[in-house]
């Protein structure tokens, strides 16, 4: 478990980090909490030759009430998201989901920005922010731009981020009292989801996203449109996998995964409807 040789530079600010990444090009990578990147490097599945450490860019670690949404700095640790009173009040689904990321050690190190930038379909945070209709603020050499969560995930571990762009903020709309549920199904307590569901419901509106049901986090639009048309929870849940392309792995066949998605979406909607 020894990574290939690499160089390391610590950035003091977003600008400095983006600058450094620009200098070193394709072979460079941002290092945030390191809890996705370092394991890949140890297996030599990733072999960046330069790591730009953004872990100490302190001014990107915050959770702020910004009126209609909550603004979260990309370097905010999962533990701070989980324990945030602001999020508990306005976006309880996200605070709750963050509590399901790995174990306490992982949550103290891993960052919300790293989770999203890593674009792992099995991650809890990408799907949760997708269900919530979040917007990601990214910064490059030419300034900032915003990408809607639904436009961000392009493929397995692939996102709309350019190589020299850094994710700096996550804007999450307030839930305004919506019912919600986070269902994570796994074999061991501390594991990635075999299938996960993040869902909320507010009158006719709803958002449902699936963890580990394809090469990207999946927005279960068919479920929301069925609900909007007045379908029952059970009937809407039958559409859970309509937008998904699940893969088989050691823990689940395609058939089982599809079945699980339906069961978990139904359970999530039942809970969110209470």
């Amino acid at each position, binding site marked *: *478990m*020894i990574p*290939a*040789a690499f160089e390391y530079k610590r950035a003091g600010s977003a600008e400095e980090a983006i600058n450094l990444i620009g200098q070193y090009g394709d072979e460079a990578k941002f290092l945030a909490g390191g809890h996705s990147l370092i394991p890949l490097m140890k*297996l*030599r599945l990733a072999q960046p030759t330069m790591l730009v450490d953004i872990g100490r860019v302190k001014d990107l670690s915050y959770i702020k009430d910004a009126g209609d949404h909550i603004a979260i700095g990309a370097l905010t640790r999962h533990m701070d998201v989980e324990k945030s009173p602001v999020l508990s009040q306005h976006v309880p689904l996200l605070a709750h989901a963050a509590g399901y990321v790995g174990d306490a050690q992982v949550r103290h190190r891993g960052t919300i920005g790293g989770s999203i930038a890593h674009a792992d379909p099995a991650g809890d945070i990408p799907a949760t922010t997708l269900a919530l209709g979040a917007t990601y603020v990214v910064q490059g050499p030419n300034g900032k731009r915003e990408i809607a969560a639904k436009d961000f995930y392009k493929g397995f571990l692939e996102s709309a981020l350019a190589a020299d762009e850094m994710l700096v903020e996550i804007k999450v709309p307030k839930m305004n009292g919506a019912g919600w549920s986070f269902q994570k*199904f796994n*074999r*061991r*307590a*501390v*594991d*990635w989801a*075999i299938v996960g569901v993040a869902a909320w419901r507010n009158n006719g509106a709803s958002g449902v996203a699936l963890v580990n049901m394809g090469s990207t986090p999946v927005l279960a639009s068919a479920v929301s449109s069925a609900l909007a048309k007045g379908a029952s929870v059970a009937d809407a849940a039958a559409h859970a996998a309509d937008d998904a392309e699940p893969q088989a792995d*050691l*823990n*689940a*066949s395609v058939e*089982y995964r599809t*079945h*699980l998605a339906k*069961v978990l979406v139904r359970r999530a909607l039942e809970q969110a409807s209470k």
Partner: protein
Amino acid sequence: MSITQERTNSIIGQRMLRREDPALLTGEAKFTNDLVIPGALHLAVLRSPYAHARIKSIDVTDALTMPGVIAIYTGKDLHATWAAPMPCAWPVTPDMKNPAHFPLALDKVCYVGDGVAAVLANSETESRDALDAIDVAYEPLQAVTDLEVALSDKTIIHEAIGTNKSYTWNLKVEATEGAVDEAFKNAAFTVSERYIQQRLIPMAMEPRAVVAVPQPFGGDITLYSATQVPHILKVMTAITLGIPEHQLRVVAPAVGGGFGSKLDVYAEELLCVALSRKHGAPVRWVEERTENTQSTIHGRGQIQNIELAADKDGKLTAVRVRLIGDMGAYLQLVTPGVPLLGAFLYAGVYDLPVAYDFSCTSVFTTMTPTDAYRGAGRPEATYAIEVAMDALARKMKIDPYELRKRNYIKKEQFPYTAFSGLTYDSGDHLAAAEKAMGHADYAAVRKKQATQNVAGARKRLGIGMTSYFEMCGLAPSRVLASLNYGAGGWESATVRVLPTSKVQVVTGTSPHGQGHETSWAMIAAEKLGVAPEDIDVLHSDTAIAPLGLDTYGSRSLAVGGVAIAGACDKVIDKARLIAAHQLECAAEDLEFAQGTFSVKGSHDKAVPLAAIAFAAFTAHNLPDGVEPNLEAQYTHDPKNFSWPFGAHICIVEIDTETGKVDVLKYIAVDDCGIQINPLIVEGQVHGGVVQGLAQALYEEAVYDTDGNLKTTNLAEYLVPAACDVPPITTDFTVTPSPTNQLGVKGVGEAGTIGAASTVMNAVIDALSGLGVTKLDMPASPNNVWKAIQAAQGGK
């Protein structure tokens, strides 16, 4: 005074904290990889990415130019170094096929992880980097991962032996010829079941690590290794490398678990010694976790066919077993013997007439070699008989506990001579089961189950049990001889009372997490009347403890602990002569208690052991013929195996929508005879139960059809963590073993032996109402769901 009697002020039986733990828990304990040896070269092993392939060429030119690289060797380069192939100490039959196996492959690789080349470099990172620069051309061949396909010999793995079959071993015992067939013909009930013991990865917390340190002059060499078997390793390394045994010293520093996976002689141990001699420099190697999953032995790997015959009351009349054992690519140290360790136990704890037919055929595959893994053969046997007993109960439509009660060997029948000729020392299965049933509140659970498991219920309740017998305490040397094992089963101990009356206990056992230092000190303290903290336990270094056969097979206490008691007796006998001399009385007139010799009937005439130790040291006034110093060595060769037993019960609830099994309660009632330290006993039961439960619900070494291992890290190979483990109720009955002076039996494997079948019986009990009567391990949510679907679809 016999230790098995009730005593006051007894040290044996106290819940003493483990003296090993402060160093382990604070990170101060020194493991092999913590040894800093200046000037050491680092070994890295290039491993085959193919399950089965011919090596066409190996090009090391580029790798040799990498920074820090000192040398690179292929199997051919080192071939002349080996005096013999890697050892297999258990040729179970005279015609057993054992393909020559060397530390690095020669022309062919036979599993993913097979060693192909060895890099020596100045640092660990440089050795690892150089691996990527070695260019090997392979000609891939067909992988063989299915045991039955392997037996067909369609693809031969080892051309030199011309077959994939290693051996067939039979144990047929019949009162009269044809008794087994006759019993099946006349049976009122029969069951015929097929079970798969999936491959398991032992996954010790500390992977393997080796450091070989040559002395500058004279050829002596010290081999440090994360091993369970320093003594066996010393003998085997000397033989395999053709180096004089007296020049080899083997040390096992702190070892972080083994479960059998470090009961072996491995390629890297031999490579480190050979290369350190070649280069005149220390050579070290540390295993990576992924390497550990591929290149350290796996466990289990059997297809079991078991048939039971019973009369109209369910009384067993015959047992027939056909096994196929997965040896993996090569035979490691005791690989072929593992199924034999279970061969005598397929009738479990039941009073079976002499009608028993066991046959095991073992076969090579292109997967990691298997070998002994916690329980070795006995969890497999227990699983087969106990799951089959539930199948029989279902067939007879009677309660599975009732069926067991009709078949238990009764307390009065002990010592019990079994169909196999083995004698079960002592036991009381009904008492253990009754105790477990009490904890479970069996009748109440059955009642709740009847109301809960109605048609359409989302959550179904199940309760399962196992009564087990464990043949352990390996082993009487003569019995091992009859099984063709290549060594004895004795254990040695030396007890030395120092001039200041502190005590050294030297043991040939080699702990790697079991707490021997604590327990062995308690035994010597009890025997000698010395405080445990005044006793040091020395072990795991062949220069300090030259005689020993190490730690495996729940043998350490039942053989090694008893050896310590025997050595203490010899010390006391000698001290008695000196005491009698000092007190001017006959030795027979002295009694020894609480560390003091006193004249029977006149207790003011007394002398403490401490004074005798000093007298033995000064030797100023010893009786004629008594040598100075107070020390004795004793070797214990057990008369019999020891036979721990117990009853386990598990209660599960299954979510039929997702297939997830939730273990609500686990009850383990074990009987390991006299307990030296109940705290340690409970710890062993907990760990063992978790490992058995892990086989039932979580763990499986998964290979694809190309022979690639898919579970190469702890995210893929699901070792349950603390939060995944249900509350475990432990309780005990105490039936002393009559075959050793401590009355002990051993508890290292008990939990593992009882747990897998207990959990699976509970799972099937929950689902049988849905038509699921058969389920392979692990009962993962996917597998459970699939079985429910299949059963429901079939309706």
